[in-house]
């Protein structure tokens, strides 16, 4: 009898903390399977083999320009570093599920810091030629179990201008590989089926350093800082952001609820923490680091980009966290935002306050459990096991190695 009593007490105390933990009023766990997926641990579920490429593909490029470590395309470099020391790495390629090729394709920067994609196709081609001749793993699947990190504007289309990118299409030799990219738009040439969308790189330390006390009241209703008209390339408007940013400006420049301007304030991060909604409209490409910043600072992202595919869309329920506004509804943005019931807004803020949500958007060094690196690995793990059909008979070729513009075929 006494033993039963003690056992009961023990069980009761065991359960009590878990019950109380769920009722934390500040954050809300993303319910359903999506919440668990964010906290999955990829270790043990997949094995990645990292090719040893000559340093001219990675280290030398980085040495030439260390700015690549801090711009928004830095994910490719940090992914390489993470994989080198990760527990999922295997040194035996025979047991690997996925193969990673470390190429820093976005590290050719102009003097002002913007990446030029003109040499990237040739670089990738040359790297693939190397791995297909030195290892047998590319040829046996023609890259179907390989993945590449291509964080540039339009992913593996390797151009910053959308029309040209569409014209080029995805690099033909990458047609069978899995692409890990920041660009995501449905029914677009540059988004292949099965690609993994990741957030752009945002410096975690800088954002951590600029936190303000959480009791500072959020007094800005809508916040945005950035260009509305790209005066150098599209002065009349209409091309840039498909006219959506210009529409935001023209409709709401007189509205005091909208704190929008093109200025570069030093208190940008602090201001975001004092805002309820942060606009994340498309620019020349639909993705932007604003989404990451909004999530980290607890500001509800208002996404104005038709057909956009957001990062880790299969793991994060973006509709519950952010507000999606169609580009044609931009003139009614104030009506849309003010008609959201306050309970819904509070729920979104609670979901955003969840630390696992914020971690999933960042690339911290050293890596933390649940961060973007792990989400990428989770995404890769979810695609396993590979179908038998990807393994080709020896000698069979599907990819056309000479496809694409003539300039791409030059050696690098």
């Amino acid at each position: 009898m006494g033993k039963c009593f003690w056992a009961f007490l023990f069980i009761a105390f065991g359960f009590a903390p878990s019950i109380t933990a769920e009722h934390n009023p500040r954050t809300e766990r993303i319910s359903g399977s999506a919440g668990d997926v964010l906290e999955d641990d990829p270790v043990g579920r997949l094995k990645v083999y990292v090719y040893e490429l000559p340093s001219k593909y990675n280290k030398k490029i980085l040495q030439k320009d260390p700015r690549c470590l801090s711009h928004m395309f830095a994910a490719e470099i940090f992914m390489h570093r993470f994989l080198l020391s990760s527990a999922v790495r295997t040194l035996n390629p025979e047991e690997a599920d996925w193969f990673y090729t470390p190429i820093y394709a976005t590290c050719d920067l102009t003097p002002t810091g913007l990446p030029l994609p003109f040499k990237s196709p040739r670089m990738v081609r040359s790297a693939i030629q190397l791995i297909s001749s030195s290892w047998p793993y590319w040829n046996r699947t023609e890259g179907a179990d390989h993945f590449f990190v291509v964080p540039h504007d339009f992913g593996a289309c390797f151009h910053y201008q959308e029309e040209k990118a569409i014209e080029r299409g995805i690099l033909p030799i990458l047609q069978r590989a899995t692409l890990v990219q920041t660009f995501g738009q449905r029914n677009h040439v540059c988004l292949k089926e099965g690609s993994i969308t990741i957030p752009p790189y945002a410096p975690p330390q800088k954002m951590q350093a600029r936190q303000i006390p959480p009791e500072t009241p959020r007094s800005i209703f809508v916040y945005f800082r950035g260009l509305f008209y790209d005066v150098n390339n599209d002065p009349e408007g209409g091309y840039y952001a498909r006219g959506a940013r210009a529409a935001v400006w023209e409709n709401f420049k007189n509205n005091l609820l909208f704190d929008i301007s093109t200025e570069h304030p030093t208190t940008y991060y602090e201001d975001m923490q004092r805002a309820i909604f942060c606009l994340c409209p498309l620019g020349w490409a639909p993705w932007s680091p604003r989404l990451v910043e909004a999530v980290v600072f607890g500001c509800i992202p208002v996404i104005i980009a038709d057909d956009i595919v957001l990062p880790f869309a299969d793991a994060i329920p973006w509709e519950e966290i952010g507000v999606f506004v169609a580009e044609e509804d931009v003139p009614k943005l104030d009506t849309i935002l003010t008609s959201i019931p306050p309970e819904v807004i509070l729920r979104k803020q609670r979901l955003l306050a969840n630390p696992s949500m914020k971690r999933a958007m960042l690339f911290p060094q050293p890596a933390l459990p649940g961060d973007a690196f792990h989400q990428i690995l989770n995404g890769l793990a979810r695609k396993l096991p590979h179908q038998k059909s990807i393994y080709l008979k020896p000698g069979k070729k599907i990819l056309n190695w000479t496809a694409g513009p003539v300039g791409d075929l030059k050696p690098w």
Partner: protein
Amino acid sequence: MKLSALPQSYLNRRSNSFRSPGPLDSSSDSAVKSPATIFWLILHGLCCLISLVLGFRFSRLVFFFLFSTSSTNFYTAPFRSTAELAKTLDVHSVLSTKPVSNLELPLLNKTATNSRVVVGRHGIRIRPWPHPNPIEVMKAHKIIERVQKEQRLQFGVKDPSTIIVVTPTYVRTFQALHLTGVMHSLMLVPYDVVWILVEAGGISNETASLIAKSGLKTIHVGFNQRMPNSWDERNKLESKMRLRALRIVREKKLDGIVMFADDSNMHSMELFDEIQNVKWFGAVSVGILATLANTDESADQKKDKEENPRMPIQGPACNVSNMLAGWHTFNTLPFAGKSAVYIDDRATVLPRKLEWSGFVFNSRLLWKDGGDKPEWIKDIDMLHGDIESPLGLVKDPSVVEPLGSCGRQVLLWWLRVEARADSKFPPRWIIDPPLDITVPSKRTPWPDAPPELPANDKPVMGIQEPIVKHTTKTRTSRSKRRSKRKHETRTDTQASTRHSEQN
């Protein structure tokens, strides 16, 4: 992508690439030019020349008239035939000078694989009345309020206590000015407020009507003594009035934090958040704005020599380990002999050593039955005389908790500004009936030009213009409301010019 991080340069890069596509851009490397291309180039050059002459991109109008199929402002179906032409024409945007309105017809490029979203030029949608809708603005403010309330619930003070505010007041010209300020501050406080107003001279309709609009829970009591005219006496009476209020707290067993808000003080909102942290008896730093009254005459020459006189602070002083070590009080020596004695003197009004408003305490200290009261609190019924400051309520001043990061934050400001004792103001500040006959001020016993006024201060007359214009035959002079004689007030020159004669 975030273009705020990619300034001019990126854009330059893009335009650079247009200008020098040869060696880099591998896509446009066709060396052979077909006749079609040449034809389009010539046509394009022609259009450019014409646009140069006309001053705007007339090609758009041409396409509008030739190719428009729908009458909407926005999308039209993509035109594959004109795709190349549209691309080449729009790429070189050097000639666009005319600002384009939202009715521009989009020229669309070829689309991607049956996507709803098309690349190319889009219209900029502007609604007919792009101004804020007041109902939506109100809704947005309600949302902001709700979010802030939630923030306070989560991060702010847990279990906030009621704030019991004690204010002694009396009817006078400046009462409306001061009391409105305090009232508005209290209306903004996010916690429950009980406002105890003790009025010298009994309850009056003036005060009652002022506070009626506040929406706060008020306790308005009268004190059967008129406010005397000297500052000393006034301070003494105010102390008595405050004790009266504390007795009310005891009688009604009000629970909360007692603070003293004199009606001419200014309070910051952080004060109310900070005093929630008091356990039993706390003190905050008060900024004294006493010296600002008389900065003319003597101070003018001296100002350049001495450094900026810092504002004196009254409040707790802490040592290095953030424990209460002493008190900052007001240094009255520089003002010896020059301070105001009567309420309407033009000299500096000095605070006392420690003002009541710098102290807050838990109302349970006043309750009769023992409970968990600490033993260092004196019973207010046992006080024989009046007390100068709330420190008289405690036996041992070292138990006082310093608030506001140990007195480093100044959370309220003390100031005493009053009009002359015999200054008149319209009851309830309503001019009713509208002035018809004006009485020259010569009848009043006030001197016209007080001897202390400095030379550069013109004797300003006609300070308070009655707003209601009245048809009067007497254009000699208007009744002057001499309520603000103590401070130099520059009225609009309009008023002084209208009164040519200075009596």
